[in-house]
């Protein structure tokens, strides 16, 4: 179980969306954000690969004969 799930404390104050967006536009935050995205991409890659592989089909997938009688 990752540490994140055990953290149930909620921050006390609401974050002002305008302030959040304005800070997000700060180049320093952008760098930090991109770095975080890069790290998270490593975690997401196997998930994305697993889902894309479901759509990699070839002739054998389409040639399956379905004929169960009962």
């Amino acid at each position, binding site marked *: 179980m990752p540490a994140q799930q055990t953290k149930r404390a909620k921050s006390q104050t609401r974050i002002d969306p305008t302030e959040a967006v304005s800070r997000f536009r700060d180049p320093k935050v952008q760098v930090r954000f991109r770095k975080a995205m890069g790290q998270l991409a490593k975690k997401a890659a196997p998930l994305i690969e697993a*889902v894309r592989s479901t759509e990699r089909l070839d002739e054998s997938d389409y040639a399956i004969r379905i004929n169960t009688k009962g």
Partner: protein
Amino acid sequence: MVATRVQQKLRQQKIEVLPLADKTLPEILELDEPPFLNPGEAHSQLSHVEQYVRQHGGRGVVVEHHYIDRDFMEEYSVFYSKSLTPYPNSCRRVSFFSLDPADLRREFKRLLKIRDQEPFEAASKEFSEKHYLGFSVIKPLDGCPVGRTVLRCSPGKPQRGYTDLFPCACGYTAHLFGIPLIVQGLAFQQQDLGVSACATTALWSALQRARELEESVAATPAQITMRASQFALPFGRAMPSEGLSVEQMCQAAHSLGHAPYLFRASESFEESRALLYSSVQSGVAPVLILSRPSGSKHAVAVAGMRIKSAHTINELGELFDDRSGDLVQLYVHDDRIGPYLSAEIRQRKKQLVLQLPTGRSENWLLSHVLVPMHPKIRLSFAELRGAAIQLVKSAHAHRQWLRQWFNVPIELPLVDYRILKAHAYVQSLRSESNVTDLLVKNLCESVAFSRYVACVRIQADDLDPIDVLLDTTGTQKNISSLAIVQTRNSLPLTAAMAALLGEEYRCQVIS
């Protein structure tokens, strides 16, 4: 003179109101056992229908002895009319009710006394909801009598801790004595091995739902088999049915105006379950292609699902909590057995196995899933899942820098996603408590929707549900976001996260 007598006989209708208590359904219908089949074999599906009806409180039946069924009429036209045995082209229809015959007659009388149209329709609807359990068309074929059958898709005994959902059900209206009887269900029929085997029948059931979504004429089993075998006959003759290939099923769906979306489901349990969950939740009845170690392949249509009532965490890649982990069971139509079979989902190694409740449990490996989609939906369920993973990634990255500025804790967000008609999304929002009328008004007045929208919902302990609406006419490389819908604003992070996602995905935030 002879012709006149035949015409008179054909025009004669006979309607009987009978109890279900004394006799079995094959006995009520006086069905013969065909001599070349094992005892009980021909009527096993009918017995399953009867069992389902009894479990749902069925006490009385109404038998119409002359009923023209479009599906059978086409089967008759292309196949049975050419047999030496002179089969009739008409069927019988049995309607099922949760009332004894005496009460049923009394109710019919009461309804027919209402002369004004509006109160009559309202009373008929109320009567249907209370007492109508559906109908079954009985074909004049001794070996496979169960034709188009629509039974009310309500759960049997509610099992504690679980919820049954039937998003793939359609509304059907039958008329009896001029009374409109409405039932929610998904049509089922028995395989006849003449015009249709399991592949045709499963696709036929699935297309019933597609028909309701787009208000088109439903395809008949005969049409499906003929379209499937129009350009290729890899396994011999089309009729009697020798089964279909997946390619033929796709061909049939395509020629009937649907976009067949196929994915492989034999490699990852989590992915298969997630894609199944999102397609059923989206209300497009998927066709499951199943296989056994012996090599036999089978097809069934999904009508509904059972999920855990209380969500349990299903963590994926330390990124998100996938709602699809709550899926435990599917309700499938198996044309060898009957409608609404509860098929338990099991994991065997990396694969998803369905346990079908036949006499002895049958385990089938889920091999592929075929989803007949509206052609305008270009975004596949796999692409939608990919987009949802990207969104969660962004949400996490935002939290990481927000944490430094605002001391925000990082929780695993709960994610689910589906594709639905734009108006259905608006309706679903309206039905949620805490969603204001103003939000719905703002959404409708400011967002240009695609006919079908994809909705990715992200929520967490510190985040109210945020819906990211995607344009389903986009493709994997060009997915556009339509809007970020901030359903509530009761938790600290919600408004900021909605604004940041809106900024990043270049779309407006509706709050």
